[in-house]
């Protein structure tokens, strides 16, 4: 079988329970970093990285308002994770033939077990339903006679009951079940990961600004629709509105007045303050906010 086009081959390390350490399993899809496992999403959020959900929500797949896993990370978010040694690549689809056979067998066994258990549960469920129906219909009448009838009915039910395979409830997993290996493998990640984009000064500026704002406790998401680089939230975006639109520029870059005007206009229209952000050589970041004011 040919290699899938985009996944990694390296393994990840043991995940820790506390959200303070950032280790999550990244997987690449078409060279975009995605998080699939529910715990990883929680970990990342608890460290004030938001990301963007891309998939259909399992409960209601045919709507676009709330989406489900996977979570796509911005390049800045991914870089922050990697610099804090928090990202490792998830295992790929197992190509090993012997391993595949073992997995197949395990899958078959699990399906069979599931069928048996669910069959039992279904029968229990039907019995309960029957009991409820019979006791409610019989009312206050109780005695050996009705008990017997009940037992008869229950027995008949059990004998005639069948749980076909088509009634089996199966799971369509979101994330791939994988094996995790020990910690040494994590060190390989930094070297092995190819650099996807060339580091341009703009990209670097973006990252410096991101890291600075993130370090101050803000939540940041992408702001393409708002004509800027980032939307800056004072708290979790689930509960708060964004306060700023961050536009990242290098210190020596000249900006056309028309661009400043258009972004200021946009900001005032959506009731957000525009921040012009430039990283300084000493590592700090200069911020300039634009406020539309009248003549005073």
């Amino acid at each position, binding site marked *: 079988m040919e290699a899938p086009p985009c996944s990694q081959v390296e393994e990840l390390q043991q995940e820790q329970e506390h959200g303070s350490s950032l280790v999550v399993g990244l997987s690449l899809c078409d060279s975009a970093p995605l998080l699939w*496992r529910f715990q990883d999403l929680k970990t990342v959020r608890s460290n004030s990285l938001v990301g963007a959900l891309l998939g259909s929500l399992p409960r209601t797949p045919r709507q676009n308002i709330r989406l489900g896993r996977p979570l796509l990370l911005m390049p800045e978010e991914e870089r922050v994770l990697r610099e804090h040694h928090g990202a490792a690549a998830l295992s790929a689809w197992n190509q090993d033939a012997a391993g595949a056979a073992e997995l197949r067998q395990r899958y078959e066994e699990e399906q069979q077990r599931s069928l048996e*258990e669910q069959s039992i549960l279904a029968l229990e469920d039907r019995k309960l339903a029957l009991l409820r129906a019979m006791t409610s219909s019989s009312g206050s009448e109780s005695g050996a006679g009705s008990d017997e009838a009940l037992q008869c009915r229950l027995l008949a039910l059990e004998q005639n009951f069948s749980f076909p395979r088509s009634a089996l409830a199966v799971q*369509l997993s979101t*994330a791939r*079940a994988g094996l995790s290996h020990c910690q040494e493998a994590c060190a390989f990640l930094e070297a092995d990961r190819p650099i996807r984009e060339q580091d341009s000064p703009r990209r670097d500026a973006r990252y410096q600004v991101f890291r600075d704002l993130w370090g101050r406790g803000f939540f940041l998401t*992408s702001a393409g629709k708002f004509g800027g680089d980032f939307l800056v939230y004072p*708290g979790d975006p689930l509960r708060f509105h964004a306060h700023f639109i961050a536009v990242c520029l290098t210190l020596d870059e000249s900006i056309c007045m028309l661009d400043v005007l258009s972004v200021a206009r946009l900001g005032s229209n959506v009731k957000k303050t525009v921040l012009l952000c430039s990283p300084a050589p000493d590592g700090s970041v200069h911020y300039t906010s634009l406020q539309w004011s009248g003549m005073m």
Partner: protein
Amino acid sequence: MADQNKTGGAENFYNEILSPCELFAARSRSHKIPARGQKDFYPDDSEEQRQRLQQSLDEHWNLIAEERVERLGNLVKATWVPSDQIVELQTPAGKFWQTMGFSAEVKQYLLPEEALYLMECGNLLVFHQDLPLSIQDGYEMFLSSDAMSLQQYQVFGHLKRLGYVVHRFDPSSEPSSYVRQLNLPQSRERGGRQLKRKRSPSPTPTCSHTKTPGESLAEKMEDDDKLPESHLMTSAEPPEPQTASPHSAAKGQARTWWMMDAPELEADKRSSPGSPSGRLRWNFSTIPFPDLGSTSRPRCMVPVDTSLLPRDVTVGVCDLDSWMRKINLRKVKMSVKEQQREKHRRRWDVNKDREVQRCRNWAEYHELLARRQAKRQGRPAHLWNREVKPLHDPTQPISTAELLEKISVVKSTNLLEGASRLKCSEEWRICFNVYQPDSVADFKKSNPGKPYSRMCVCSFDGPVPDLRVIKQLAFQSGNVPIVYAVVDYGDISFYTFKDFQLPRDVYA
């Protein structure tokens, strides 16, 4: 069965697999999404805010963590064929078959993006090497930058979730510009709507008119036919035989046969226009031209001078009557003013005009007449006879709309002008045909009809499509509008470029 994070041992099996008990219990899950409440403006570390945040987060995690559980009987089973990058159905297709998938030979197939979408909806179970694929496996195996990239799948999924029918765009299945020009009834068109091919703009009409030569000729006739021919005979100098242009040299020669012998032509070229150029062969003053039209005409004609005739030719008496009958001899009724004008004109000798005397030949005389005519009409030569002419003759009527057209510096154009010459770009291409949701009921895959729009997928990181790309893609798409779906990580924005005519405050 399997739970989360069984620690210990060399092997850690991390998964989010539900136990059969949980799977069974999933039947009675709610299918509602909790509504989101109002957002706060600023975090103020209050307990109330913290609680609300926690509640929102818990709701969020509940929804995100939920796994898809389906009855096996409701699922369509399929296998992934990596060599063809296609998904082959193993059990018969469900309702989705009306708008998705295709058959080849006896089997039913789905394209990778269609299969992935159905997996996400919980309708399809895809196997590979006899093991079921997770959604993650689907994303990683089905999506790649050559066939269907992640961004394109994002747009695909977004539109499908809204209910649109989305198919891949195949440029070869579009009729070529030639076919469109022929306006053939499209077999694939629904409703038989003919494509109206916009005609290429006709060349702008030149505003300079060249009616002066003809006009001058007519005028010359009008001028001359009243004059008796005898005036022509007595021109002071013979016109210069040679004209400037080489191609009329032969003509010039032909015109001068009455003037001189052929060998003398050389000498004439050098002679000045003012002086008589060579001997006159005939003395025109002694050759009468009979004026049969004038009132005081002789009823008979002077006999022909035999010396002028070629040898062996004899001429009898000319019967005038038959010829006279062919002439309109009615006297022209003229008003007093006209009679006076006529008298004035007969007195005036055109040969006395200095400018006329300066003309060396008929061509120059025509030019003189044309100039005079133009001046009379308000078209002075210094304006109209140069390379740069006035845009419009003020004496000519013109509507305001046309005049505005003439003086406009920037001509308006339409999007498709010049688009047929453009070559396809490498980076930009149309990805999808999109059909409206309400057409799903009678949608036919074999004959989908005209799409509602066509999608081109790009991102905010990439370049904005320039005019060249817009023209080329609009041309390729024909009469279906193109929508640019711009992907920004989680968000998709849709843009379209429309032709727009600037309003003109003119009623033509």
